[in-house]
């Protein structure tokens, strides 16, 4: 902030200096013009030595440079005067009536005198107006500076607000986290395994927390994706299209039965069904309503297997928690083939089988209601439910039928991937073969020993012959079959 104010002061000084310079330049040119006019006016008057001295006196008020220049000009005047004398002799003086310096008209002399007298006040160098008279022309610049100032103020306010939100979330959940996990908050740069008990700031609007140390859980990652309150443009965008803060809690499991299941509000389910790779692959059916399991009407569910899995997951405790916190709950995604969102560029050459992890993801929407600051505390039951589910799922044993179905699904998906990559792998294999043959030929060419060369040549010939034979055999086989 101090830095900015200093910068603004420096800029202002620069402007004032640059503006002042302009004025000086202007004054100089005008003064020079005056001198020139008077010089030319004086050419026709040969008795003007007196006037010239007065002019000289007048010019004393100028800077030294100009006074020095005057004598040289006078010398030039003398020279020019004589020349012009001859010129003007040929000209009819009657034709020049009315001009300043014309002897015939007495009034013109007066004018000249007046001019000389007027010169004195004009010789004063005008004061540069260094006051604020110029500033009103710079209104656009002032607006820009104001804009920057406002943006900075909003940045600090937004940053502070996000920070308080994050710390209040942590303060509400820390107790439960300590009970559930051995390590709460991990600093990757710290070699010792210590609980930091602090959220890690990924950016001004994203905070993360990693907890680990629980049976059958690799760990739990909490991401607080808050609104970009520190960016004024985002704030304006949020006013027009409201979104809310989100808390994404993902528990990475070590053991999870083969299931893909998702439940959530309608909007998020449709979105997830399109974007999540595992949901696309395994849950081909449309999302169903969950009346059978007493789910609220606003929620839909997606599942790979509709037999015993949804009933097991959506037991009374879970449903009760979901119902109580409908306003907060967004989606719950349980999958043993979780691989994130689908890649955007579908036409990639080699869609390799994505790496999958066993993960339970819970997304909570958090609407800030200024009248009810305790809403963060209401998120705790959802977290508890998540932990409860993760424990419960460890004990789930799928029925034989379900297990067979699930395994078949997974095998199908793997096959599909293999087929897709089959063409690429074939090409790659062929290229390798060609490379080998080429290398062999090169060896043969470069071989100095004629014996070895001959032997290599024979080998190559034999290989080619074998290939031809194989092709012929295949052709014969097809012919036989056709017959």
């Amino acid at each position, binding site marked *: 902030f101090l830095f900015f104010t200093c910068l603004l002061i420096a800029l202002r000084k620069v402007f004032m200096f640059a503006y002042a310079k302009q004025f000086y330049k202007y004054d100089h040119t005008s003064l020079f013009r005056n001198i020139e006019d008077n010089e030319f006016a004086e050419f026709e008057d040969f008795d003007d030595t007196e006037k010239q001295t007065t002019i000289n006196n007048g010019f004393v008020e100028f800077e030294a440079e100009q006074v020095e220049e005057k004598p040289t000009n006078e010398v030039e005047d003398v020279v020019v005067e004589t020349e012009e004398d001859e010129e003007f002799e040929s000209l009819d003086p009657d034709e020049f009536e009315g001009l300043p310096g014309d002897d015939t008209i007495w009034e013109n002399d007066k004018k000249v005198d007046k001019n000389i007298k007027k010169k004195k006040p004009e010789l004063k160098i005008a004061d540069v107006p260094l006051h604020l008279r110029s500033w009103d022309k*710079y*209104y656009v*610049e002032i607006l820009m500076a104001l804009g920057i100032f406002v*943006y900075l103020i909003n940045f600090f306010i937004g940053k502070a607000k996000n920070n308080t939100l994050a710390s209040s979330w942590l303060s509400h959940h820390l107790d439960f986290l300590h009970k559930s*996990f051995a390590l709460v908050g991990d600093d990757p740069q710290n070699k010792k395994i210590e609980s930091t008990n602090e959220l890690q700031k*990924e950016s001004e609007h994203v905070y993360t927390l990693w907890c680990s140390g*629980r*049976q*059958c859980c690799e760990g739990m990652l909490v991401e607080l994706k808050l609104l970009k309150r520190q960016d004024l*443009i985002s704030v304006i965008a949020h006013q027009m299209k409201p979104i809310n803060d989100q808390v994404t809690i993902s528990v990475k499991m070590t053991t999870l039965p083969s299931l893909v299941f998702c439940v959530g509000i309608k909007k998020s389910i449709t979105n997830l069904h399109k974007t999540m790779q595992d949901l696309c692959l395994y849950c081909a059916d449309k999302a169903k309503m969950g009346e059978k399991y007493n789910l609220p009407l606003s929620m839909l569910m997606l599942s790979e297997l509709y037999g015993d899995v949804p009933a097991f997951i959506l037991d009374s405790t879970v449903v009760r928690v979901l119902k109580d916190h409908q306003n907060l709950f967004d989606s719950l995604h349980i999958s043993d083939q979780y691989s994130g969102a689908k890649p955007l560029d579908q036409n990639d050459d080699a869609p390799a089988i994505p790496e999958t992890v066993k993960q339970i993801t819970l997304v909570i929407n958090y609407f800030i209601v200024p009248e009810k600051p305790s809403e963060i505390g209401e998120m705790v039951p959802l977290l508890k439910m998540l932990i409860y589910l993760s424990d419960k799922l460890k004990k789930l044993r799928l029925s034989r039928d379900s297990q067979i179905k699930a395994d078949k699904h997974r095998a199908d998906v793997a096959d599909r991937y293999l087929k897709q990559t089959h063409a690429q792998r074939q090409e790659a294999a062929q290229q390798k073969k060609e490379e080998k043959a080429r290398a062999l030929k090169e060896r043969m060419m470069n071989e100095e020993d004629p014996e070895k060369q001959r032997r290599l040549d024979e080998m190559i010939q034999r290989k080619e012959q074998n290939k031809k034979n194989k092709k012929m055999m295949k052709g014969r086989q097809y012919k036989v079959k056709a017959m």
Partner: protein
Amino acid sequence: MDSTPNDELKGRNYAIVRYKPKAANASDDPVPDYMNLLAMIFSMCGLMLKIKWCAWCAVFCSLISFANSRSSEDSRQVLSSFMLSVSAVVMTYLQNPAPMVTPW
């Protein structure tokens, strides 16, 4: 040894896994990178072509990039682009101190 309720919740045999920060950060939010690039382009235009509004836009873009930047990124990049934009503004005004002309 007393088995506290904490241990029972966590389970007796648990393994602590260290945090691995997500590597794929760039694809998540492209705003700071785009704004950084825009700031550089505007400041270059402002400096070379002596266009005042370009220089001011550069300052704004670098500010937006700074606000949206991730903590894992180097702050030097953002700072240097900010300095460049400020220098563009100062240079354009030194060369031409007249106020900016608006099209309306």
